[in-house]
């Protein structure tokens, strides 16, 4: 083949350009730590990396949801436990009232119960991260409707009604929320209700069982005529029978609360398992993404060294291209 000036320089320049561009690409890979530096480099890997990236973000969000749900359920569980303990205290007071030696202090016991009822209602109005825990999906004071006699916008309230023979104190615990569930996404196509509703804790949303405590309070504080008991106003056999019934009813509330908490315990176990599973998936996705997108430093360094050597030799050859022609020897 006849070699001309053009045949010497043009292919050389083209090759030099290619070596330099290869070297630059490897320098970029090493300096950024990213394997994919151009959309057209390896589109299949780019698509893969994008899919992994999206899965990672989605699973990070699920982890966040799970973590929040766990904290919420834990807070709910602890609150229910406190309420159950208070219920148990009331039950113990009811049992104490039936004992002969304590009988003269029944009105004092009634006052103790009143204090505990306040504590229970306070706990029922508890909030987590600014949202009511037991109000169904009415999470804020603004969303709570106030019926007649209600004085606040909390989901549970002890209201004062007109005293009657059945309810001489006129007190009543009312619920102003609803029994709707708060549903959180915990994974792909997987969601879970994380709140405990009032009908899971008590017999119904009218709190017919919880108001038995008011009945107990009335029994201990008022006599059959509806007057406040005096020291000599002892419990008669009818009262004792009622006391026994109330005590049993209160026992049922305690059991129901424990059942609700058992459900929460199971939910927390599930959330723990889900968290572990999601974490494991997340780690896998991060690993896959890393394999696709991160620079293989060893390979890139070796390649860069090769390119540098090639470039060095190419430049030396380039310097020789201009060296000699026959004209240099013709004197």
């Amino acid at each position, binding site marked *: 083949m006849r070699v001309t000036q053009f045949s010497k320089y043009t292919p050389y320049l083209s090759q030099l350009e290619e070596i330099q561009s290869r070297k630059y690409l490897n320098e970029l890979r090493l300096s950024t730590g990213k394997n994919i530096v151009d959309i057209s480099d390896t589109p299949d890997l780019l698509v893969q990396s994008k899919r992994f990236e999206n899965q990672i973000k989605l699973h990070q969000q699920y982890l966040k949801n799970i973590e929040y749900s766990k904290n919420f359920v834990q807070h709910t569980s602890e609150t229910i436990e406190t309420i159950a303990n208070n219920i148990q205290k009331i039950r113990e007071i009811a049992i104490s009232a039936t004992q002969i030696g304590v009988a003269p202090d029944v009105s004092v016991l009634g006052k103790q119960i009143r204090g505990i009822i306040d504590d229970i209602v306070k706990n029922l109005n508890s909030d987590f991260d600014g949202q009511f825990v037991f109000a*169904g999906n009415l999470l804020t004071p603004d969303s709570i409707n106030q019926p007649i006699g209600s004085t606040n916008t909390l989901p549970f309230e002890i209201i004062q009604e007109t005293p009657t023979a059945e309810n001489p104190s006129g007190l009543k615990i009312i619920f102003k929320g609803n029994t709707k569930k708060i549903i959180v996404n915990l994974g792909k196509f997987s969601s879970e209700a994380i709140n405990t509703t009032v009908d899971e804790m008590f017999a119904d949303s009218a709190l017919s069982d919880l108001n038995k405590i008011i009945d107990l309070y009335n029994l201990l504080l008022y006599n059959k005529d509806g007057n406040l008991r005096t020291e000599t106003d002892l419990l008669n056999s009818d009262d004792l029978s009622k006391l026994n019934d109330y005590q049993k009813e209160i026992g049922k509330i305690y059991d129901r609360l424990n059942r609700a908490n058992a459900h929460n315990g199971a939910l927390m176990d599930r959330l723990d398992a889900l968290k572990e599973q999601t974490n494991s998936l997340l780690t896998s996705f991060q690993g896959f993404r890393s394999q696709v997108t991160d620079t293989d430093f060893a390979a890139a360094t070796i390649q860069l060294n090769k390119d540098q050597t090639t470039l060095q030799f190419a430049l030396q050859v380039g310097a020789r291209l201009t060296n000699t022609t026959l004209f240099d020897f013709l004197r």
Partner: protein
Amino acid sequence: MGVSPSLEIAKKALIAQRLGLDATSGNIANVNTPGYSRRVPNLTEGEPLPSRNGFVGNGVLVSKLRTFREEFFDRQIRRSLSNLNTLETDSSIINRIAVILGEPGENSITAIVGVFLNSFQDLTYKPTDLSLRQRTLTLAQTLVKRFKETASQLQDTRQQLLSDINDNVKQANKIIKEIAELNYKIASATSKLKGDNQTLVDQRALKIEELSKLIDINVTQGDFGTLNIFTNGINLVTGSTYNQLKLKESIDGTTGERTLSLVKIDQNGRELATVNLQNGKLYSLIEHFNVTLDDKDSSNKFSVAKELEVFFATFVSKVNFFTQNGYGLDDTGPPPPGRSLFTYTGTLSTQTAEVNSTILSDPGKMPISGYAGEVGDSTIARQISELSLDKSFLNNQTPDEFLTNLIGNIGNLGNQISSLYTISKTTNDQLLNQRESLIGVNLDEEAINLVKYQKAFEAASRVVATTNDILATVVNLGR
């Protein structure tokens, strides 16, 4: 036979060797001139003269200055250049699109859509949290802004292409005119001098190659050394006459789609025919203007701008569909207030959409509850967040799959162009190399030629001197 024929022979030799020296000097001078084809004098022996002792040589003649240009290589190179320039332009436009989309990168459109949808998951468990609502609204604004910016940058690029197309049409017209003028000069030289003017031929070949970079052309031989230029059956240059090209823009009355085409016009600017390009820089520019960057494209080919618009419109419509059935924190009902998260005037597009200002001014109004008065209900928030898993979102793909595939398609296109470009470049380099090995200048060869012609010139001079001495001797014989 006398002495004077020797002088005549020496004169012819001097002229021939001098021409050789001139051709060599010209070759050396043009060693780096693009399109230059080396010349070598074609030396032939003069017709012998009869003498009593038989035929005696009549010296040397230069029959022509020979060049080595071959139509085969010229044709192949023109085709290759057309293809190479198509791919080069394609590659440059695809790279610009990749930069606009922020790919590969962490703040790409795909990432923003994902973060926006995920923000609704936070609202599923804290629907009343105003700061979380505000965050989602800020992300909605970012999303709209990003799509707006992207669409507007794609349209800017399209406008830039229009300006490039106009420049290139002007350039093509200039070259067409120059080729016709060169044809005229070559035809004149051919008819007057009975031979090619190689310089003009080389210049014309160079111009034809420049034209083939812009449009795909066919070249046929005309009379008196002229060449005729066609593009897809439409003649642009016939001898010394030529037609110009004009860019024609048509706008669809219904869709408003702007389409460019190239037409051949006569000297009065009247449209003669539509030029359907298949290759070349202009083809690529027009194709990307009409398809890739046209958000109203109706060709069913791959259009990045349209795909983005379709995605955005679908996304906004779906989110709005959910929010229109939802309630804000203070909303009563049913029926729901029918509040859209995104509003727009006229036709829904990246340019007309905004985040609902009513919701922006009061995040509590963001309708994410499915039931009136139930502020803790997050049915709508969940439905929106689950859009990210909705396989029926668009073309049986989730939003993320659609956008990832869009990026993948752009990447594949870029990759395909890059591979084809490498192949085309190699082929083009090989063809250029092969042609250069024929027509190019080799300085060593020219150095030898220089010595060869110089020595021959010296020898011929010596013949003149010797003949002169002989003549002097003859003249002095009578003294």
